[in-house]
């Protein structure tokens, strides 16, 4: 491979090293990973708690004791029996007795645990919803405040523009009036001049007649 291609590889590696994800995407990815970790943690602790309650509950202890007793009884019976037992029959009897003793207890236990789980999930959901709502309200209020400020700024600017226009119009009117007054003075001056000229001519005439 030529030197140019080597340079190209190095250039491409440089380009790769300069790729930066946006800060928004980074934040989103970190939050997503954090949420996953936290949810996993709560799920794991809930399942551990369930198992702990199952093993701690008196019903479970009783059922375990019953199973143990039946097994011991079966073993003793088998050992002391003069002739071999019907295994199938025993199996069926054991199964039905176990089912009868265990099923309601397990069902009850399961209901209690499911209820607990539901309550936990509901409480967590409520808290999350509340927090989300608060965040939304805060965001809306901030947005509203920003919009109000912007609107009031625009209104102030508009009012100022109107005031400037009014002042300009008043000044223009004043200027017009001054111009009209100056013109009138000019016309009066011309009239006075022609009047004075007429008086001078008249005086000359009178003087000539007297001489």
């Amino acid at each position, binding site marked *: *491979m030529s030197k140019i*291609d*080597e340079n190209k*590889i190095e250039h*491409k*590696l440089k*380009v*790769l*090293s*300069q*790729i*930066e*994800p*946006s800060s928004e*995407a*980074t934040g*989103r*990815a*970190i939050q*997503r*990973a*954090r949420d*996953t*970790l*936290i949810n*996993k*943690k709560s799920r*794991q*602790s809930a399942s551990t708690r369930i198992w702990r309650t199952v093993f701690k509950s008196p019903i479970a202890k009783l059922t375990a004791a019953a199973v143990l007793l039946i097994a011991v009884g079966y073993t003793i019976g088998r050992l002391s029996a003069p002739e071999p037992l019907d295994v199938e029959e025993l199996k069926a009897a054991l199964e039905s007795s176990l089912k009868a003793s265990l099923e309601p207890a397990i069902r009850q236990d399961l209901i209690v645990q499911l209820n607990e789980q539901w309550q936990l999930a509901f409480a967590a959901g409520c808290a999350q919803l509340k927090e989300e709502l608060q965040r939304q309200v805060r965001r809306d209020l901030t947005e509203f405040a920003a919009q109000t400020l912007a609107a009031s700024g625009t209104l102030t600017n508009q009012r100022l523009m109107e005031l400037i226009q009014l002042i300009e119009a008043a000044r223009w009117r004043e200027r017009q009036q001054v111009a009209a007054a100056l013109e009138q003075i000019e016309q009066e001056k011309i009239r006075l001049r022609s009047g004075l000229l007429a008086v001078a001519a008249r005086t000359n005439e009178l003087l000539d007649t007297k001489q």
Partner: protein
Amino acid sequence: MRDRQKELLELLDKSGADLYALLTRLTLREDVAEELMQELFIKLSNSRRFDKAGNRQAYTRRAAINLAFDWRRRQKRKPLRLDQVREPASNDSSPLGKLVQTEELDEILNAIGRLNRSSREAFVMRYIQEEPYDYIAKQLDKTAHQVRALCSRALNRLRDVLGHDQRLSFEKEKHNVKN
């Protein structure tokens, strides 16, 4: 278990941004990097080896690099659907430039994916993350000299792989023109 979760959360705060940047550079897609980041932390939370690892940060980075290259390998096998085509992470603004650049970068990354794991890790840290040799050596529990040798060998291998790929595509093109 709880300690591990706590430790992972701390790791996420400390190195999350760097890991995400690394995944973005290796996949060239922010959405995929986000998915892989989540997958990485799920894997770490289930991993017993993470607890045993002496350097957790190095272990995490290695796992991230492996995940990214596994994804690249899967992508090569899968035919590309139209809805999978997203805008790649690139600094060039023109669409054609972006396309060409992404293809070239993909080619380089696929070639890096063909390196062996230890060379690949050293190479990625040196040339994509631009870490100094001493730091890489510390992270990989090797000497700086060994890391230099690894990177140099990896670069040579990369040249060979890319050269071979180019020759192959050229011959294919020639064959197509003839027929």
